[in-house]
């Protein structure tokens, strides 16, 4: 039986990490909600974010956490042509054509990373990534707390955007009945494009945070995608606050799983939860609480 300090540290670290996981899943969630698209390149968008943070630091010397807005805009802008040239022309051709296209984009991106940045694993090396923070018996890396704070802030901002602004109104209306929204004057294509870009921008920030907390490489996208899918399935589709709760739940359960079964089982817990939720609560734990 590990001592209470280790247990509580692990759980706190899991919850904090879960906040970051929620942010990494947010883009996937809103794109799924509005466009009915499982963006299979979402994990690679996160990797783009991680590389963007890394090179921002290398070229400017400015801390990537300060440069987060730049990274967000950069990744968001990259997503615009993907939407206009690859996804928009497939509108009306069923969900699978768009999903397969994003799968192909994922393959291409992954190979592009290898060609451009080599297959090495890297990390965004900052002091706060390794410095431990101690509060009583609880110890965890400082980056977890910073990442959690940034993630929760951003998720709440997106929640505000979706639930309280005119754009959010258009977004929610387009998600449930695109035809009715269009008849009322909503330019649904534009809403979808902005949603896709917003999702990518969130992925950019989430990717930088992941890159600061952990090592990453050209093929990290697959694992990122699967964790994000687990969060979305746990939290419910297209539900911003649900994504936050789903992320925290996944982070905590992964940590507990890692502690009890061994560190190698962390990700396995996530995948097992994912399939179990699909089997028994396909609408997520928060089926009712839609934003």
């Amino acid at each position, binding site marked *: 039986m590990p001592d209470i300090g280790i247990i509580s540290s692990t759980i706190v670290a899991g919850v904090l990490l879960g906040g970051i996981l929620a942010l990494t899943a947010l883009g996937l969630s809103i794109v799924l909600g509005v466009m*009915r698209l*499982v963006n*299979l390149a979402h994990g690679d968008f996160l990797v783009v974010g991680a590389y963007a943070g890394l090179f921002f630091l290398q070229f400017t010397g400015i801390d990537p956490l300060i440069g987060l807005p730049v990274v967000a805009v950069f990744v968001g802008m990259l997503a615009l042509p993907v939407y206009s040239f*690859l996804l928009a*022309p*497939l509108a009306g*051709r069923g*969900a*699978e*054509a768009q*999903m*397969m*296209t994003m*799968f*192909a*984009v*994922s*393959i*291409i991106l*992954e*190979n*592009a990373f*290898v*060609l451009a940045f080599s297959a090495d694993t890297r990390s965004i090396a900052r002091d706060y990534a390794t410095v431990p923070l101690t509060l009583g018996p609880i110890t965890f890396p400082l980056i977890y707390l910073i990442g959690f704070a940034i993630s929760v802030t951003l998720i709440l901002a997106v929640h505000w955007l979706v639930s309280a602004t005119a754009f959010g109104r258009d977004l929610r209306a387009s998600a449930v009945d695109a035809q009715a929204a269009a008849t009322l004057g909503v330019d649904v294509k534009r809403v979808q494009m902005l949603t896709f870009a917003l999702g990518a921008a969130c992925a950019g920030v989430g990717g930088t945070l992941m890159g600061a907390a952990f090592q990453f490489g050209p093929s990290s996208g*697959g*694992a990122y*995608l*699967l964790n994000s*899918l*687990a969060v979305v*399935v746990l939290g419910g589709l297209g539900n911003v606050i649900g994504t936050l709760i789903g992320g925290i739940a996944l982070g905590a359960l992964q940590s507990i799983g890692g502690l009890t079964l*061994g560190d*190698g*089982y962390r*990700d*396995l817990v996530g*995948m*097992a939860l*994912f*399939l*179990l939720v*699909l*089997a028994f609560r*396909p609408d997520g734990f928060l089926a009712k609480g839609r934003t």
Partner: protein
Amino acid sequence: MSDAIVSSPRVGSASTGGLVEVAVLVGALGVLWFVPDFAGDYWLQLGFRTCVYLVLAQGWNLMAGSAGLVSLGTSSFIGLGAYAALGLLNRVGAPLPLALLICATAGGVLAALVSPALFRLRGLYFTVGTLALAELLRLLMVNVSAFGGATGIILQEDPPALPVLFRYVLVLAFLASLTITLCTRTRVSVILRAVRDDEDAAAQMGIRPYRVKLGAFVLASALAAMAGGIQAAKLGAIEPYGMFGLQWSIDVLSMVIIGGVGLRLGPLVGALFVVALGEALADYPEAHTAIAGVILIVLIRFAPQGIVGLAVKLPLIGRVQA
């Protein structure tokens, strides 16, 4: 008129078409059986890979083209088959054909076991669920030391010689193609296509869509497990990252989309194309998958019926195909 031909493969009598197809398959088996007698190792390697791909693509095409199930979890069943085959060969000393049959059973059973989770909601969930399943199994193999952990397991005896393996995989590809012929040239085909076209209307006709989809999934999974088993026997050493790797799923999906989803010749054309592309770009492995990605995007957008679909639209070939 060409559209009608594409969408309805049965022009003329079903049984005649089926018999012709079976005859072609038997003929192909008969001719290719003697390839090891005069072909070198290079061509046998290529032939082996093409046959493995063909087995996978036949199963995937049955699921996607006939039952509307788009899977990204082919590697789950390849990996399962690979581990089961080497386990049986090492521990029990089972002969390879028997081991492959047990692999097929294991693949089918796994498919049936996970189907409640994967079929719960329609469409996209099946795809993401299969993706998660492959990752789950890979992580399990990495972590459980009984399965060799991250280093995997090694075949204790020497793997069979390449000509022998080639003939095994040839028979396997023949059997897979024959099975699919039975599914697409008989009354099973109308049931499958009805479920793909309109599940609700099919149910109203007395079809039980869940069972039909489950059947296609189980069959495709059994085929993939056998492909994984024979691949493992050839490699002689397997590890989880390779056998449960996403690359398998990418390859099989690319083959079928490039060849033509739901078309009888799609898997064969796709398998040949992907193997040929791999050879042409053998010196540029990174570019290889990226180019496959570009081809996928272009085909999805401009030729959703793949190469075979394009070819059939040309009037001359279309008539021959019919």
